Protein backbone atom coordinates (compact mmCIF):
# COMPACT_ATOMS: atom_id res chain seq x y z
CA UNK A 1 0.00 0.00 0.00
CA UNK A 2 1.44 3.41 -0.91
CA UNK A 3 1.90 6.29 1.50
CA UNK A 4 -1.10 8.30 0.34
CA UNK A 5 -3.47 5.35 0.58
CA UNK A 6 -2.13 4.57 4.05
CA UNK A 7 -2.66 8.21 5.10
CA UNK A 8 -6.25 8.08 3.78
CA UNK A 9 -6.84 4.85 5.72
CA UNK A 10 -5.61 6.53 8.90
CA UNK A 11 -7.98 9.44 8.29
CA UNK A 12 -10.97 7.12 7.72
CA UNK A 13 -10.18 5.25 10.94
CA UNK A 14 -9.83 8.58 12.74
CA UNK A 15 -13.19 9.84 11.45
CA UNK A 16 -14.78 6.51 12.39
CA UNK A 17 -13.54 6.89 15.98
CA UNK A 18 -11.45 3.76 15.54
CA UNK A 19 -8.11 5.17 16.71
CA UNK A 20 -6.61 4.96 20.19
CA UNK A 21 -6.27 8.33 22.01
CA UNK A 22 -2.53 8.41 21.26
CA UNK A 23 -3.11 7.66 17.55
CA UNK A 24 -5.77 10.37 17.51
CA UNK A 25 -3.34 12.91 18.95
CA UNK A 26 -0.81 12.03 16.24
CA UNK A 27 -3.44 12.47 13.49
CA UNK A 28 -4.56 15.85 14.85
CA UNK A 29 -0.97 17.10 15.05
CA UNK A 30 -0.28 15.87 11.52
CA UNK A 31 -3.38 17.67 10.24
CA UNK A 32 -2.46 20.90 12.00
CA UNK A 33 1.04 21.12 10.56
CA UNK A 34 0.60 19.48 7.16
CA UNK A 35 -1.56 21.31 4.61
CA UNK A 36 -1.46 18.34 2.23
CA UNK A 37 -2.96 16.06 4.96
CA UNK A 38 -5.70 18.63 5.52
CA UNK A 39 -6.34 18.64 1.79
CA UNK A 40 -6.74 14.86 1.89
CA UNK A 41 -9.21 15.18 4.78
CA UNK A 42 -11.26 17.90 3.11
CA UNK A 43 -11.37 15.89 -0.15
CA UNK A 44 -12.47 12.83 1.78
CA UNK A 45 -15.34 14.82 3.33
CA UNK A 46 -16.31 16.21 -0.08
CA UNK A 47 -16.28 12.70 -1.54
CA UNK A 48 -18.53 11.52 1.30
CA UNK A 49 -21.24 14.09 0.65
CA UNK A 50 -20.87 13.71 -3.13
CA UNK A 51 -21.54 9.96 -2.82
CA UNK A 52 -24.81 10.69 -1.05
CA UNK A 53 -25.67 13.44 -3.51
CA UNK A 54 -25.17 11.11 -6.45
CA UNK A 55 -27.17 8.31 -4.84
CA UNK A 56 -30.08 10.66 -4.19
CA UNK A 57 -29.87 12.10 -7.68
CA UNK A 58 -30.04 8.61 -9.14
CA UNK A 59 -32.83 7.61 -6.79
CA UNK A 60 -35.09 10.57 -7.22
CA UNK A 61 -33.92 12.35 -10.34
CA UNK A 62 -35.57 9.70 -12.49
CA UNK A 63 -39.02 10.35 -11.02
CA UNK A 64 -40.46 12.24 -13.98
CA UNK A 65 -43.72 10.34 -14.05
CA UNK A 66 -44.56 10.51 -10.40
CA UNK A 67 -47.76 12.24 -11.35
CA UNK A 68 -49.08 8.93 -12.66
CA UNK A 69 -49.43 7.60 -9.17
CA UNK A 70 -49.63 10.69 -6.98
CA UNK A 71 -51.03 13.45 -9.11
CA UNK A 72 -50.83 16.45 -6.82
CA UNK A 73 -48.00 17.26 -4.45
CA UNK A 74 -45.45 14.46 -4.64
CA UNK A 75 -43.93 15.77 -7.82
CA UNK A 76 -43.20 19.04 -6.07
CA UNK A 77 -41.48 17.26 -3.25
CA UNK A 78 -39.14 15.67 -5.72
CA UNK A 79 -38.15 18.92 -7.42
CA UNK A 80 -35.20 19.87 -5.23
CA UNK A 81 -33.12 17.07 -6.62
CA UNK A 82 -33.59 18.14 -10.18
CA UNK A 83 -32.41 21.52 -8.95
CA UNK A 84 -29.29 19.84 -7.64
CA UNK A 85 -28.72 18.18 -10.98
CA UNK A 86 -28.49 21.56 -12.59
CA UNK A 87 -25.31 22.22 -10.64
CA UNK A 88 -26.31 25.68 -9.51
CA UNK A 89 -26.93 26.99 -13.01
CA UNK A 90 -30.67 27.47 -12.65
CA UNK A 91 -32.27 30.82 -12.25
CA UNK A 92 -31.82 32.31 -8.85
CA UNK A 93 -35.48 32.62 -8.02
CA UNK A 94 -36.13 29.02 -8.95
CA UNK A 95 -33.17 28.21 -6.75
CA UNK A 96 -34.59 30.11 -3.83
CA UNK A 97 -37.89 28.30 -4.13
CA UNK A 98 -36.09 24.98 -4.44
CA UNK A 99 -33.93 25.76 -1.41
CA UNK A 100 -37.00 26.36 0.64
CA UNK A 101 -38.49 23.13 -0.58
CA UNK A 102 -35.31 21.18 0.11
CA UNK A 103 -35.67 22.39 3.68
CA UNK A 104 -39.07 20.77 3.77
CA UNK A 105 -40.88 24.08 3.62
CA UNK A 106 -42.88 25.87 1.02
CA UNK A 107 -43.64 29.49 0.32
CA UNK A 108 -46.99 28.84 1.86
CA UNK A 109 -45.49 26.92 4.74
CA UNK A 110 -42.98 29.63 5.47
CA UNK A 111 -45.02 32.73 4.97
CA UNK A 112 -48.66 31.84 4.85
CA UNK A 113 -49.40 28.72 6.82
CA UNK A 114 -51.74 30.58 9.16
CA UNK A 115 -54.32 30.46 6.39
CA UNK A 116 -54.33 26.66 6.62
CA UNK A 117 -55.96 25.10 9.62
CA UNK A 118 -53.44 22.65 11.12
CA UNK A 119 -54.51 19.04 10.72
CA UNK A 120 -52.09 17.53 13.17
CA UNK A 121 -52.16 17.93 16.95
CA UNK A 122 -50.25 16.32 19.80
CA UNK A 123 -52.37 13.89 21.78
CA UNK A 124 -49.75 12.50 24.17
CA UNK A 125 -46.05 12.05 24.79
CA UNK A 126 -43.64 10.18 27.01
CA UNK A 127 -39.95 10.76 27.69
CA UNK A 128 -37.60 12.85 25.60
CA UNK A 129 -39.64 14.36 22.75
CA UNK A 130 -39.35 17.74 21.08
CA UNK A 131 -40.48 19.89 18.16
CA UNK A 132 -38.14 21.81 15.91
CA UNK A 133 -40.15 24.78 14.75
CA UNK A 134 -40.01 26.25 11.27
CA UNK A 135 -37.66 28.97 12.49
CA UNK A 136 -35.14 26.74 14.19
CA UNK A 137 -36.34 26.93 17.79
CA UNK A 138 -36.51 23.77 19.87
CA UNK A 139 -39.65 23.23 21.97
CA UNK A 140 -39.35 20.55 24.61
CA UNK A 141 -42.65 21.13 26.43
CA UNK A 142 -45.21 19.34 24.31
CA UNK A 143 -48.67 20.15 25.58
CA UNK A 144 -51.57 17.91 24.61
CA UNK A 145 -53.58 19.70 21.92
CA UNK A 146 -50.62 21.70 20.55
CA UNK A 147 -51.06 22.12 16.78
CA UNK A 148 -48.22 21.07 14.50
CA UNK A 149 -47.50 23.54 11.70
CA UNK A 150 -46.24 22.74 8.22
CA UNK A 151 -42.43 22.56 8.26
CA UNK A 152 -42.19 21.57 11.92
CA UNK A 153 -40.28 18.41 12.82
CA UNK A 154 -41.41 16.12 15.63
CA UNK A 155 -38.77 14.06 17.36
CA UNK A 156 -38.91 11.14 19.75
CA UNK A 157 -35.35 10.99 20.99
CA UNK A 158 -34.80 8.01 23.23
CA UNK A 159 -35.35 4.28 23.30
CA UNK A 160 -38.14 4.70 25.87
CA UNK A 161 -39.84 7.83 24.46
CA UNK A 162 -42.89 8.11 22.20
CA UNK A 163 -45.17 10.76 20.76
CA UNK A 164 -48.87 10.33 19.91
CA UNK A 165 -50.54 12.53 17.31
CA UNK A 166 -54.12 13.10 16.12
CA UNK A 167 -54.56 13.70 12.38
CA UNK A 168 -57.85 15.36 11.48
CA UNK A 169 -60.75 14.17 13.59
CA UNK A 170 -60.36 10.39 13.74
CA UNK A 171 -56.86 9.32 12.72
CA UNK A 172 -53.95 8.53 15.06
CA UNK A 173 -50.21 8.39 14.45
CA UNK A 174 -47.55 7.31 16.97
CA UNK A 175 -43.79 7.60 16.59
CA UNK A 176 -41.56 5.85 19.12
CA UNK A 177 -37.93 5.25 20.02
CA UNK A 178 -35.46 7.34 18.06
CA UNK A 179 -37.72 8.71 15.33
CA UNK A 180 -38.54 11.94 13.55
CA UNK A 181 -41.42 13.09 11.40
CA UNK A 182 -41.89 16.33 9.51
CA UNK A 183 -45.11 17.71 8.10
CA UNK A 184 -44.32 19.02 4.64
CA UNK A 185 -47.63 19.88 2.95
CA UNK A 186 -51.33 19.61 3.45
CA UNK A 187 -52.62 21.00 0.18
CA UNK A 188 -55.36 19.37 -1.88
CA UNK A 189 -56.58 17.38 1.12
CA UNK A 190 -53.45 15.22 0.93
CA UNK A 191 -51.24 15.90 3.95
CA UNK A 192 -47.68 14.84 3.20
CA UNK A 193 -45.16 13.84 5.85
CA UNK A 194 -41.45 13.22 5.58
CA UNK A 195 -40.45 10.25 7.75
CA UNK A 196 -36.70 9.69 7.37
CA UNK A 197 -36.03 7.61 10.46
CA UNK A 198 -37.72 5.47 13.09
CA UNK A 199 -40.88 3.49 13.79
CA UNK A 200 -44.38 4.77 13.12
CA UNK A 201 -47.82 3.27 13.74
CA UNK A 202 -51.02 4.74 12.33
CA UNK A 203 -54.77 4.22 12.05
CA UNK A 204 -56.02 6.41 9.22
CA UNK A 205 -59.66 7.23 8.70
CA UNK A 206 -60.12 10.20 6.34
CA UNK A 207 -62.69 12.83 7.29
CA UNK A 208 -63.87 16.09 5.75
CA UNK A 209 -60.44 17.68 6.35
CA UNK A 210 -58.34 15.24 4.33
CA UNK A 211 -58.76 12.49 1.73
CA UNK A 212 -55.58 10.50 2.19
CA UNK A 213 -52.30 10.56 4.05
CA UNK A 214 -48.98 10.51 2.20
CA UNK A 215 -45.70 9.59 3.81
CA UNK A 216 -42.31 9.85 2.14
CA UNK A 217 -39.28 7.97 3.46
CA UNK A 218 -35.77 8.01 1.98
CA UNK A 219 -36.65 5.14 -0.35
CA UNK A 220 -40.43 5.27 -0.98
CA UNK A 221 -43.64 7.28 -1.01
CA UNK A 222 -46.87 5.76 0.40
CA UNK A 223 -50.50 6.79 0.18
CA UNK A 224 -53.04 5.60 2.77
CA UNK A 225 -56.81 6.05 2.98
CA UNK A 226 -58.72 3.79 5.36
CA UNK A 227 -55.78 1.90 6.75
CA UNK A 228 -53.99 0.66 9.80
CA UNK A 229 -50.28 -0.03 9.42
CA UNK A 230 -46.80 0.18 10.87
CA UNK A 231 -43.82 1.65 9.09
CA UNK A 232 -40.14 1.36 9.95
CA UNK A 233 -37.35 3.17 8.19
CA UNK A 234 -33.65 3.58 8.76
CA UNK A 235 -30.74 4.42 6.47
CA UNK A 236 -32.62 3.97 3.23
CA UNK A 237 -34.40 0.72 4.22
CA UNK A 238 -38.17 0.93 4.68
CA UNK A 239 -40.62 -1.77 5.77
CA UNK A 240 -44.39 -1.30 5.64
CA UNK A 241 -46.82 -3.80 7.17
CA UNK A 242 -50.49 -3.35 6.35
CA UNK A 243 -52.84 -4.60 9.02
CA UNK A 244 -56.07 -3.11 7.67
CA UNK A 245 -56.97 -1.45 4.36
CA UNK A 246 -54.71 -0.78 1.38
CA UNK A 247 -51.73 1.39 0.55
CA UNK A 248 -50.24 2.62 -2.72
CA UNK A 249 -46.47 2.35 -2.76
CA UNK A 250 -43.90 3.93 -5.05
CA UNK A 251 -40.23 2.97 -4.82
CA UNK A 252 -38.22 6.13 -5.48
CA UNK A 253 -35.20 4.55 -7.14
CA UNK A 254 -37.08 3.21 -10.18
CA UNK A 255 -40.62 4.59 -9.73
CA UNK A 256 -42.04 1.08 -9.58
CA UNK A 257 -45.44 1.02 -7.93
CA UNK A 258 -47.51 -1.46 -6.02
CA UNK A 259 -50.72 -1.70 -4.05
CA UNK A 260 -50.53 -3.73 -0.88
CA UNK A 261 -53.44 -4.94 1.20
CA UNK A 262 -54.38 -6.27 4.60
CA UNK A 263 -51.98 -8.88 5.97
CA UNK A 264 -49.25 -7.98 3.47
CA UNK A 265 -45.91 -6.23 3.82
CA UNK A 266 -43.28 -4.68 1.58
CA UNK A 267 -39.57 -4.05 2.09
CA UNK A 268 -37.93 -1.28 0.09
CA UNK A 269 -34.28 -0.28 -0.14
CA UNK A 270 -32.57 2.55 -1.98
CA UNK A 271 -31.53 0.07 -4.69
CA UNK A 272 -33.63 -1.50 -7.42
CA UNK A 273 -31.84 -4.84 -7.34
CA UNK A 274 -35.06 -6.81 -6.65
CA UNK A 275 -38.58 -6.39 -7.98
CA UNK A 276 -41.00 -4.54 -5.72
CA UNK A 277 -43.21 -7.25 -4.26
CA UNK A 278 -46.03 -7.49 -1.76
CA UNK A 279 -45.33 -10.36 0.61
CA UNK A 280 -47.66 -12.05 3.03
CA UNK A 281 -46.83 -11.07 6.58
CA UNK A 282 -45.14 -14.06 8.20
CA UNK A 283 -46.70 -15.90 11.12
CA UNK A 284 -45.58 -14.94 14.62
CA UNK A 285 -42.90 -16.92 16.44
CA UNK A 286 -42.22 -17.19 20.15
CA UNK A 287 -38.45 -16.92 20.18
CA UNK A 288 -35.64 -14.70 19.04
CA UNK A 289 -31.88 -14.80 19.43
CA UNK A 290 -29.24 -12.10 19.46
CA UNK A 291 -27.29 -13.57 16.52
CA UNK A 292 -30.18 -12.57 14.22
CA UNK A 293 -29.08 -8.92 14.56
CA UNK A 294 -27.35 -7.25 11.63
CA UNK A 295 -25.39 -3.97 11.84
CA UNK A 296 -28.31 -1.55 11.32
CA UNK A 297 -30.44 -3.43 13.87
CA UNK A 298 -28.17 -2.14 16.60
CA UNK A 299 -30.03 1.03 17.48
CA UNK A 300 -27.72 2.25 20.20
CA UNK A 301 -24.35 0.91 21.28
CA UNK A 302 -20.83 0.48 19.95
CA UNK A 303 -19.73 -2.82 18.46
CA UNK A 304 -16.55 -4.03 20.14
CA UNK A 305 -14.28 -7.01 19.47
CA UNK A 306 -15.89 -10.30 20.44
CA UNK A 307 -14.57 -11.76 23.69
CA UNK A 308 -16.05 -15.21 23.24
CA UNK A 309 -16.87 -17.16 20.05
CA UNK A 310 -20.58 -17.01 19.22
CA UNK A 311 -21.17 -13.95 21.41
CA UNK A 312 -21.46 -10.29 20.47
CA UNK A 313 -19.94 -7.42 22.41
CA UNK A 314 -22.00 -4.25 22.27
CA UNK A 315 -20.98 -1.49 24.63
CA UNK A 316 -23.69 0.79 26.04
CA UNK A 317 -23.23 4.36 24.79
CA UNK A 318 -23.89 7.60 26.67
CA UNK A 319 -27.20 9.32 25.97
CA UNK A 320 -28.24 12.59 27.64
CA UNK A 321 -31.88 12.17 28.70
CA UNK A 322 -34.14 15.06 29.53
CA UNK A 323 -36.08 14.66 32.77
CA UNK A 324 -37.35 18.23 33.04
CA UNK A 325 -36.94 21.59 31.35
CA UNK A 326 -33.16 22.23 31.10
CA UNK A 327 -32.43 19.20 33.25
CA UNK A 328 -30.74 16.12 31.87
CA UNK A 329 -29.28 12.97 33.28
CA UNK A 330 -26.94 10.65 31.46
CA UNK A 331 -28.06 7.18 30.45
CA UNK A 332 -25.72 4.48 29.13
CA UNK A 333 -27.76 2.47 26.67
CA UNK A 334 -27.56 -0.47 24.30
CA UNK A 335 -30.72 -0.95 22.19
CA UNK A 336 -31.61 -3.44 19.45
CA UNK A 337 -34.42 -3.89 16.94
CA UNK A 338 -36.05 -7.28 17.35
CA UNK A 339 -38.78 -6.63 14.80
CA UNK A 340 -36.38 -5.67 12.03
CA UNK A 341 -33.90 -8.45 12.65
CA UNK A 342 -36.50 -11.22 12.80
CA UNK A 343 -38.26 -12.36 9.61
CA UNK A 344 -41.31 -13.16 11.75
CA UNK A 345 -43.10 -11.05 14.37
CA UNK A 346 -41.91 -12.14 17.81
CA UNK A 347 -44.86 -12.70 20.14
CA UNK A 348 -44.69 -12.61 23.95
CA UNK A 349 -46.85 -15.22 25.68
CA UNK A 350 -47.61 -16.30 29.22
CA UNK A 351 -44.41 -18.07 30.27
CA UNK A 352 -42.09 -16.23 27.84
CA UNK A 353 -38.77 -15.19 29.36
CA UNK A 354 -36.01 -12.86 28.27
CA UNK A 355 -32.41 -13.91 28.88
CA UNK A 356 -29.66 -11.29 28.99
CA UNK A 357 -25.96 -12.08 29.15
CA UNK A 358 -23.73 -9.13 29.81
CA UNK A 359 -20.65 -7.83 31.57
CA UNK A 360 -20.15 -4.70 33.62
CA UNK A 361 -17.50 -3.14 35.80
CA UNK A 362 -19.64 -1.47 38.45
CA UNK A 363 -22.24 -3.64 40.13
CA UNK A 364 -25.05 -1.08 40.04
CA UNK A 365 -28.69 -1.86 39.09
CA UNK A 366 -29.28 -2.39 35.36
CA UNK A 367 -32.58 -1.43 33.74
CA UNK A 368 -33.87 -3.86 31.11
CA UNK A 369 -36.78 -2.94 28.85
CA UNK A 370 -38.57 -3.47 25.57
CA UNK A 371 -41.19 -1.77 23.39
CA UNK A 372 -44.27 -3.51 22.02
CA UNK A 373 -47.09 -3.27 19.53
CA UNK A 374 -50.36 -5.14 19.27
CA UNK A 375 -50.21 -8.08 16.85
CA UNK A 376 -51.04 -6.53 13.47
CA UNK A 377 -51.94 -3.43 15.40
CA UNK A 378 -50.75 -0.18 16.88
CA UNK A 379 -47.99 0.79 19.30
CA UNK A 380 -48.69 -0.70 22.73
CA UNK A 381 -46.06 0.95 24.95
CA UNK A 382 -42.87 0.07 26.76
CA UNK A 383 -42.11 -2.23 29.70
CA UNK A 384 -39.12 -2.02 32.03
CA UNK A 385 -37.61 -3.54 35.15
CA UNK A 386 -34.58 -2.76 37.34
CA UNK A 387 -32.34 -5.65 38.32
CA UNK A 388 -29.86 -5.38 41.18
CA UNK A 389 -26.58 -7.27 41.24
CA UNK A 390 -27.69 -9.81 43.86
CA UNK A 391 -30.30 -11.17 41.41
CA UNK A 392 -27.77 -11.78 38.69
CA UNK A 393 -26.05 -15.12 38.15
CA UNK A 394 -22.46 -15.42 37.07
CA UNK A 395 -21.88 -17.58 33.97
CA UNK A 396 -18.13 -17.86 33.58
CA UNK A 397 -16.86 -14.42 32.58
CA UNK A 398 -20.39 -13.20 31.91
CA UNK A 399 -23.41 -12.35 34.02
CA UNK A 400 -26.80 -13.78 33.16
CA UNK A 401 -30.34 -12.95 34.16
CA UNK A 402 -33.59 -14.65 33.05
CA UNK A 403 -36.59 -12.34 33.41
CA UNK A 404 -40.18 -13.50 33.18
CA UNK A 405 -42.77 -11.10 31.77
CA UNK A 406 -44.32 -10.43 35.18
CA UNK A 407 -41.05 -8.77 36.23
CA UNK A 408 -41.66 -5.96 33.74
CA UNK A 409 -44.00 -3.05 34.47
CA UNK A 410 -45.68 -0.76 31.93
CA UNK A 411 -44.31 2.77 31.58
CA UNK A 412 -47.72 4.35 31.03
CA UNK A 413 -50.95 3.98 33.00
CA UNK A 414 -53.04 3.36 29.88
CA UNK A 415 -50.93 0.42 28.65
CA UNK A 416 -51.93 -3.22 29.17
CA UNK A 417 -50.60 -4.31 32.57
CA UNK A 418 -48.86 -7.32 31.07
CA UNK A 419 -47.07 -7.53 27.71
CA UNK A 420 -48.54 -11.02 27.11
CA UNK A 421 -50.01 -11.26 23.62
CA UNK A 422 -48.03 -8.28 22.32
CA UNK A 423 -45.37 -8.23 19.61
CA UNK A 424 -41.92 -7.09 20.71
CA UNK A 425 -40.28 -4.31 18.70
CA UNK A 426 -37.08 -3.12 20.34
CA UNK A 427 -35.17 -4.40 23.33
CA UNK A 428 -32.73 -2.42 25.46
CA UNK A 429 -30.58 -2.35 28.57
CA UNK A 430 -29.21 0.70 30.35
CA UNK A 431 -27.67 2.12 33.47
CA UNK A 432 -28.72 5.48 34.84
CA UNK A 433 -26.31 8.33 35.58
CA UNK A 434 -23.32 6.05 36.13
CA UNK A 435 -21.35 4.38 33.38
CA UNK A 436 -21.09 0.82 34.65
CA UNK A 437 -19.11 -0.26 31.58
CA UNK A 438 -22.14 -2.27 30.49
CA UNK A 439 -21.51 -4.60 27.52
CA UNK A 440 -24.29 -6.79 26.12
CA UNK A 441 -23.14 -10.15 24.78
CA UNK A 442 -26.34 -12.09 24.25
CA UNK A 443 -30.11 -11.62 24.45
CA UNK A 444 -32.66 -14.32 23.85
CA UNK A 445 -36.43 -14.40 23.98
CA UNK A 446 -37.32 -17.86 25.23
CA UNK A 447 -40.69 -19.49 24.53
CA UNK A 448 -42.90 -20.83 27.35
CA UNK A 449 -41.60 -24.15 28.74
CA UNK A 450 -44.35 -26.60 27.90
Amino acid at each position, binding site marked *: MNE*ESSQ*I*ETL*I*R*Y*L*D*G*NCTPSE*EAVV*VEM*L*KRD*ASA*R*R*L*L*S*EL*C*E*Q*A*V*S*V*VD*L*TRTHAIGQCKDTVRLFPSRTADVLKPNSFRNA*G*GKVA*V*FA*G*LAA*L*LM*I*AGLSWKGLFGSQETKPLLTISGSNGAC*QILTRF*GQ*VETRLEKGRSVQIGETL*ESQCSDSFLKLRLGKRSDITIAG*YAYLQQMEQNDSFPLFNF*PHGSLWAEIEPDKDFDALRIQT*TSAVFEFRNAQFDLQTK*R*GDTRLRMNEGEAKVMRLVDQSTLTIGKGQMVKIT*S*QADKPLLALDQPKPVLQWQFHQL*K*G*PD*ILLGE*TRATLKPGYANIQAT*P*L*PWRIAEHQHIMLYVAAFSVSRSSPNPVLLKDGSRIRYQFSYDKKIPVRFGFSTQRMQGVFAGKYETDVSHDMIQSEGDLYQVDLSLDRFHPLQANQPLSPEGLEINDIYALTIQEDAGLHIHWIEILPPER
Partner: protein
Amino acid sequence: MQLQEAQILQFLMEARIRLSAAAWLVTRDAHAAEDVFQNMALKAITRKVEFENESALLSWAFIVVRREGIDWLRRHQRITLEMDDELVDLLNQDWVAKQKHALAGGRLEALSQCLESLPEKSRSLLNLKYFEGLNGSEMAARIGIDLDAVYKRLSRLHQALRQCVERKMESACSKL
Protein backbone atom coordinates in the same frame (compact mmCIF):
# COMPACT_ATOMS: atom_id res chain seq x y z
CA MET B 1 -21.98 47.29 -1.09
CA GLN B 2 -23.94 44.47 0.54
CA LEU B 3 -24.61 41.21 -1.27
CA GLN B 4 -28.15 40.88 -2.54
CA GLU B 5 -30.31 37.86 -1.72
CA ALA B 6 -29.84 36.40 -5.19
CA GLN B 7 -26.05 36.69 -4.96
CA ILE B 8 -26.04 35.11 -1.50
CA LEU B 9 -27.96 32.17 -2.83
CA GLN B 10 -25.71 31.81 -5.85
CA PHE B 11 -22.50 31.84 -3.78
CA LEU B 12 -23.92 29.38 -1.27
CA MET B 13 -25.02 26.98 -3.98
CA GLU B 14 -21.57 27.17 -5.58
CA ALA B 15 -20.03 26.28 -2.22
CA ARG B 16 -22.67 23.68 -1.35
CA ILE B 17 -20.46 20.58 -1.47
CA ARG B 18 -17.73 22.24 0.61
CA LEU B 19 -20.19 23.57 3.18
CA SER B 20 -21.93 20.18 3.34
CA ALA B 21 -18.51 18.54 3.70
CA ALA B 22 -17.73 20.84 6.63
CA ALA B 23 -21.08 19.86 8.18
CA TRP B 24 -20.35 16.18 7.55
CA LEU B 25 -17.04 16.54 9.37
CA VAL B 26 -19.00 17.57 12.47
CA THR B 27 -22.01 15.23 12.22
CA ARG B 28 -20.49 12.28 10.28
CA ASP B 29 -23.95 11.89 8.77
CA ALA B 30 -24.46 12.98 5.16
CA HIS B 31 -28.23 13.38 5.53
CA ALA B 32 -27.72 15.59 8.57
CA ALA B 33 -25.04 17.52 6.69
CA GLU B 34 -27.59 18.39 4.04
CA ASP B 35 -30.09 19.51 6.69
CA VAL B 36 -27.38 21.66 8.26
CA PHE B 37 -26.55 23.26 4.91
CA GLN B 38 -30.23 23.98 4.29
CA ASN B 39 -30.72 25.54 7.72
CA MET B 40 -27.69 27.75 7.19
CA ALA B 41 -28.89 28.79 3.73
CA LEU B 42 -32.32 29.61 5.12
CA LYS B 43 -30.74 31.75 7.84
CA ALA B 44 -28.66 33.57 5.24
CA ILE B 45 -31.67 34.49 3.11
CA THR B 46 -34.45 34.93 5.65
CA ARG B 47 -32.62 36.67 8.49
CA LYS B 48 -31.13 40.13 8.65
CA VAL B 49 -27.52 39.17 8.05
CA GLU B 50 -25.46 41.43 5.81
CA PHE B 51 -22.38 40.41 3.87
CA GLU B 52 -19.98 42.68 2.06
CA ASN B 53 -18.54 40.07 -0.24
CA GLU B 54 -18.32 36.36 -1.00
CA SER B 55 -15.47 35.76 1.47
CA ALA B 56 -17.42 37.34 4.33
CA LEU B 57 -20.47 35.25 3.42
CA LEU B 58 -18.49 32.00 3.28
CA SER B 59 -16.58 32.71 6.50
CA TRP B 60 -19.95 33.26 8.20
CA ALA B 61 -21.44 30.19 6.51
CA PHE B 62 -18.66 27.85 7.68
CA ILE B 63 -19.06 29.10 11.26
CA VAL B 64 -22.84 28.65 11.14
CA VAL B 65 -22.50 25.20 9.60
CA ARG B 66 -20.25 24.15 12.47
CA ARG B 67 -22.63 25.55 15.10
CA GLU B 68 -25.65 23.98 13.41
CA GLY B 69 -23.78 20.67 13.16
CA ILE B 70 -22.99 20.69 16.88
CA ASP B 71 -26.60 21.63 17.59
CA TRP B 72 -27.78 18.71 15.44
CA LEU B 73 -25.52 16.34 17.41
CA ARG B 74 -26.97 17.68 20.65
CA ARG B 75 -30.56 17.34 19.44
CA HIS B 76 -29.97 13.82 18.18
CA GLN B 77 -27.88 12.88 21.18
CA ARG B 78 -25.05 11.68 19.01
CA ILE B 79 -21.53 11.69 20.25
CA THR B 80 -18.85 11.88 17.59
CA LEU B 81 -15.20 12.62 17.75
CA GLU B 82 -14.63 16.08 19.22
CA MET B 83 -12.71 18.12 16.64
CA ASP B 84 -9.87 20.33 17.77
CA ASP B 85 -10.94 24.01 17.39
CA GLU B 86 -7.65 25.09 15.85
CA LEU B 87 -7.85 22.26 13.33
CA VAL B 88 -11.44 23.12 12.38
CA ASP B 89 -10.44 26.76 11.86
CA LEU B 90 -7.57 25.68 9.60
CA LEU B 91 -9.84 23.39 7.58
CA ASN B 92 -12.46 26.11 7.20
CA GLN B 93 -9.82 28.59 6.05
CA ASP B 94 -8.65 26.03 3.48
CA TRP B 95 -12.22 25.54 2.29
CA VAL B 96 -12.91 29.29 1.96
CA ALA B 97 -9.63 29.74 0.06
CA LYS B 98 -10.41 26.79 -2.20
CA GLN B 99 -13.70 28.38 -3.22
CA LYS B 100 -11.78 31.26 -4.80
CA HIS B 101 -9.76 28.92 -6.97
CA ALA B 102 -10.69 29.33 -10.61
CA LEU B 103 -11.12 25.59 -11.14
CA ALA B 104 -13.10 24.88 -7.96
CA GLY B 105 -16.35 24.20 -9.83
CA GLY B 106 -14.59 22.00 -12.38
CA ARG B 107 -13.06 19.87 -9.63
CA LEU B 108 -16.49 19.08 -8.21
CA GLU B 109 -17.86 18.31 -11.64
CA ALA B 110 -14.89 15.96 -12.15
CA LEU B 111 -15.56 14.29 -8.79
CA SER B 112 -19.15 13.71 -9.78
CA GLN B 113 -18.07 12.14 -13.11
CA CYS B 114 -15.48 9.96 -11.37
CA LEU B 115 -18.07 8.71 -8.88
CA GLU B 116 -20.43 7.86 -11.71
CA SER B 117 -17.74 5.90 -13.49
CA LEU B 118 -17.00 3.65 -10.49
CA PRO B 119 -18.01 -0.02 -10.79
CA GLU B 120 -21.31 -0.90 -9.09
CA LYS B 121 -19.53 -2.88 -6.35
CA SER B 122 -17.35 0.08 -5.40
CA ARG B 123 -20.34 2.42 -5.42
CA SER B 124 -22.21 0.01 -3.12
CA LEU B 125 -19.32 0.05 -0.65
CA LEU B 126 -19.28 3.86 -0.60
CA ASN B 127 -23.07 3.88 -0.26
CA LEU B 128 -22.90 1.62 2.78
CA LYS B 129 -20.41 3.96 4.38
CA TYR B 130 -21.87 7.33 3.51
CA PHE B 131 -25.50 6.92 2.39
CA GLU B 132 -26.43 4.31 4.97
CA GLY B 133 -23.95 5.76 7.48
CA LEU B 134 -22.50 2.45 8.67
CA ASN B 135 -19.24 2.53 10.60
CA GLY B 136 -16.33 0.22 9.79
CA SER B 137 -17.47 -2.53 12.18
CA GLU B 138 -21.03 -2.48 10.87
CA MET B 139 -19.76 -2.64 7.30
CA ALA B 140 -17.50 -5.57 8.17
CA ALA B 141 -20.49 -7.41 9.65
CA ARG B 142 -22.71 -6.57 6.66
CA ILE B 143 -20.18 -7.58 3.97
CA GLY B 144 -18.64 -10.44 5.89
CA ILE B 145 -15.02 -9.29 5.79
CA ASP B 146 -12.76 -8.13 8.59
CA LEU B 147 -12.48 -4.55 9.76
CA ASP B 148 -8.98 -3.95 8.37
CA ALA B 149 -10.11 -5.10 4.92
CA VAL B 150 -13.02 -2.62 5.05
CA TYR B 151 -10.69 0.29 5.79
CA LYS B 152 -8.22 -0.82 3.13
CA ARG B 153 -10.94 -1.07 0.47
CA LEU B 154 -12.34 2.32 1.41
CA SER B 155 -8.94 4.01 1.37
CA ARG B 156 -8.14 2.54 -2.06
CA LEU B 157 -11.47 3.77 -3.37
CA HIS B 158 -10.97 7.27 -2.04
CA GLN B 159 -7.49 7.34 -3.49
CA ALA B 160 -8.77 6.13 -6.86
CA LEU B 161 -11.37 8.90 -6.84
CA ARG B 162 -8.72 11.45 -5.97
CA GLN B 163 -6.47 10.28 -8.81
CA CYS B 164 -9.39 10.25 -11.25
CA VAL B 165 -10.20 13.87 -10.35
CA GLU B 166 -6.55 14.88 -10.75
CA ARG B 167 -6.40 13.25 -14.22
CA LYS B 168 -9.57 15.03 -15.31
CA MET B 169 -8.28 18.36 -14.00
CA GLU B 170 -4.94 17.96 -15.80
CA SER B 171 -6.76 17.12 -18.99
CA ALA B 172 -9.02 20.18 -18.55
CA CYS B 173 -5.99 22.43 -17.91
CA SER B 174 -4.21 21.19 -21.01
CA LYS B 175 -7.26 22.16 -23.09
CA LEU B 176 -7.32 25.73 -21.71
